[in-house]
């Protein structure tokens, strides 16, 4: 399957507000796709539809076809299984008020893994993959809340990885972090794309240009343009895209 997600004619309403209009796009496998656009354009809404987090919002209605590797995610697929396959990292780092170990083990434990040895292995592997093992290996049983902001966000990434997803959704993952932590997480994303498909919402144009392979520009709930990142940032086809990426509005 060369496209992890295929979306056709998706529409989303929050009550009467038509938040996403006739969105059709493909998310290719093993690449980083960036979703850009001004505030309120629907990119975060779209991201959250990919793992059905919008189900938690009352009054949210979705029509259209969203498929994960060919399967309709709003069909008979178990929503918890979907969220295992499609992990999420949020804008503000949100480690649980538990130890580092318990944070990482939460996902595997939820999905049935109980044996200590297995959990130990998963915890170490996830922390290594998230480039934070060396910093926490001596304090696995201490609270995760004692870590710095950048470390917490990498912990959240490790936590998402521990559930062994196929896709990682990132909602402005570095907007609350300092430049050095941001750089580390960008490097991490570039490493991760070898094994996972990554979809990232970002406000930072330079970040999208730096690390994404494809970029999708949202405006007022519609997809204006979608294509290779290099093309979007050097020769955008739509004048609205050009105006947005050069900072003339938004």
């Amino acid at each position, binding site marked *: 399957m060369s496209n992890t997600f295929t979306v056709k004619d998706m529409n989303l309403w929050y009550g009467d507000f038509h938040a996403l209009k006739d969105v059709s796009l493909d998310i290719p496998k093993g690449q980083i796709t960036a979703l850009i656009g001004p505030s309120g354009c629907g990119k975060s809404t779209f991201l959250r539809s990919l793992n059905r987090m919008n189900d938690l919002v009352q009054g949210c209605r979705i029509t259209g076809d969203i498929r994960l590797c060919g399967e309709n995610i709003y069909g008979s697929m178990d929503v918890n299984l979907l969220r295992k396959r499609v992990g999420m990292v949020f804008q503000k780092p949100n480690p649980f008020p538990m130890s580092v170990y318990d944070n990482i083990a939460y996902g595997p434990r939820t999905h049935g893994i109980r044996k200590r040895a297995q959990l130990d292995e998963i915890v170490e592997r996830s922390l290594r993959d998230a480039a934070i093992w060396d910093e926490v290996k001596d304090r696995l049983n201490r609270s995760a809340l004692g870590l710095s902001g950048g470390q917490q966000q990498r912990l959240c990434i490790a936590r998402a990885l521990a559930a062994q997803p196929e896709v990682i959704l990132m909602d402005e993952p570095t907007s609350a972090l300092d430049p050095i932590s941001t750089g580390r997480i960008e490097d991490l994303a570039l490493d991760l794309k070898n094994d996972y498909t990554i979809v990232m919402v970002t406000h930072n144009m*330079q970040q999208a240009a730096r690390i994404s392979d494809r970029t999708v520009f949202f405006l007022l709930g519609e997809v204006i343009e979608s294509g290779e990142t290099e093309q979007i940032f050097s020769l955008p086809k739509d004048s609205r895209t050009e105006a947005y990426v050069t*900072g*003339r509005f938004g």
Partner: protein
Amino acid sequence: MTRKYYDEQLDALHAELINMGQMISGAIGKAVAALLSRDTARAREVIAYDDEVDRQERAVETMCYKLLLSQQPVAGDLRRVSSALKIITDMERIGDHAADISELTLMLDALPRMSNAHLREMAAQTTEMLLHSLEAYVEQDMDKAHAVIAQDDAVDALFVAVKRDLVEAIRVDPQAGEAAADLLMAAKYFERIGDHATNIAEWAVFAHTGHHAQA
């Protein structure tokens, strides 16, 4: 419209480019006048003026780097600034050619005068090409840019005409050989100026459309 300061910086850049263009076109005019009237004093002025032109080039270059550093432009904005960097290189070469023509004037000093209408025409046309190509860049006028690119053919034709004239002049008066040879070199410099102006017009097209118009 956001990015007011950025647009102001771009406007300042454009103004400096036009300024540099006018400096150089002035230099070309002076150089050809000095050449055809054997005015060595004027020629020396043009040669000294080249330092000014180089200083202006550095100044505009610094402005471009500042823009790149502080604004991190993308898409059209990036093309504009990077084109400006290429354009001042071509302009600086044109300035150098004007100085080179004045060097010839100094060498021709002792030799008899030799006028040539076609040479004057070349000077006029290439000056026009320079100014129009800069305008095409600043105003994003593609028609002007393409006109300049087409005009290069006319300048090349004029060069051939000058060569014919000079060959005829030598046939008529073999003593005029050295003067004629130097004039031919001057004509070659003008032809090169025309090529550089054409390059500037091509960069103007690239800045606007993203495609390089290889003439």
